[in-house]
């Protein structure tokens, strides 16, 4: 429990700094930072691997879609900052470091991992929000049909 609490808190606070850079205000700040914190929690729970990043970003995608619909605001504001802690900044650094120390094999592995991580982030949130949108519009259509049906009955 304790081992998860602190990282989640750090992730939340790290996101707060980014909201200042992207000029996010008001309720947007806690909402997007909570997304970043929960995303990091999922990443930790599934063992800090590339599939874990995929799951985390998939979660953030759905979370942002829901938040945006509740607040009637563009989704970008919520997904942008929440994904940032997961972006593989360390990978870029270590790959460079290994390259400079002529350790090309290790550098290649790190580069591939970094690329995989970035792709997982992109694909994860893309897939989840696409699925969410498709099912959302389906539910809406179904809802509209039921209403139409009811009105038909009344008349």
């Amino acid at each position: 429990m304790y081992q998860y609490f602190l990282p989640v808190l750090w992730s939340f606070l790290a996101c707060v700094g980014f909201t200042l850079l992207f000029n996010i205000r008001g309720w947007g700040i806690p909402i997007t930072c909570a997304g970043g914190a929960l995303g990091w929690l999922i990443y930790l729970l599934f063992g800090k691997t590339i599939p874990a990043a995929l799951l985390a970003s998939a979660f953030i995608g759905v979370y942002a879609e829901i938040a945006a619909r509740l607040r009637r605001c563009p989704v970008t504001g919520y997904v942008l900052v929440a994904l940032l802690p997961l972006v593989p900044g360390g990978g870029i650094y270590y790959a460079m470091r290994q390259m400079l120390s002529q350790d090309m094999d290790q550098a290649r592995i790190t580069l591939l991992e970094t690329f995989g991580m970035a792709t997982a982030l992109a694909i994860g949130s893309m897939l989840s929000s696409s699925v969410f949108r498709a099912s959302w519009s389906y539910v809406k259509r179904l809802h509209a049909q039921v209403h139409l049906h009811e009105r038909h009955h009344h008349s």
Partner: protein
Amino acid sequence: MNQQQVLNLAADMGCALMGSGAEIYRVEESMERLLRAYGMDEAEVFAIPNCIIVSVTAPDGQPVTRMRRVGAHGTDIERMERCNDLNRRLCAETPPIAEAQRLLRAIPGQARRYNDRVSLLGYAFSPTFFAPLFGGGLTDMGCACLVGLLVGLFQVYGGKLFGGNGFFHTLVSSAAASVLALGLVRMGIPARLDVITISALMMLVPGVAITNAMREIMAGDVLSSLSHAAAALLTAVAIALGTGVGLALMQYI
């Protein structure tokens, strides 16, 4: 109400949205909705990063086209949300064009921005908490805060120095970060070099470009998506090269 005025209104709205960092499909969709709301069903809108083209046909059959360029811009969520709200309102109420223009022009004044000092605070704040996230301790937090502050100084005030050259700007910022991190460690502060450098580099990482690239490919804008993906890749290379400067220095000092 004539075509040209509506065309100008739509182009201004598109520019305002794009300038606040909205995705391409949002820019196109908003402009199309606005044009339809004002009765221009045959309007065509085309947007790619930094450029908007909008074309309508006047009643006499004469085509009217307008092209607008949008310069290098950051992301301003507050302004984007306000433009989005205004666009929705204009589509629903279709006030007279002059009134709509006035409302649109009022947005930059209404949407408050954090000033440079607060942005700087953000640059120092995030790395402070990235440090423990990447396994650092209290000293690492302090050092990461300092290095982040330096990155912020370069990012916020270095704009005039580097102009629109984002690649070079990122390269210099990350080199500065890596040199300062190295200096702090060499001064005898018991901090971990990797942790403090990476924490500060997180401020330069192309998260926005990756996010935009993916949202645009989702919407089917392959061209814009590719250009953002290329930007993300270039930024990553710039960060790596910049860090390389610091790391190479390490071998000599």
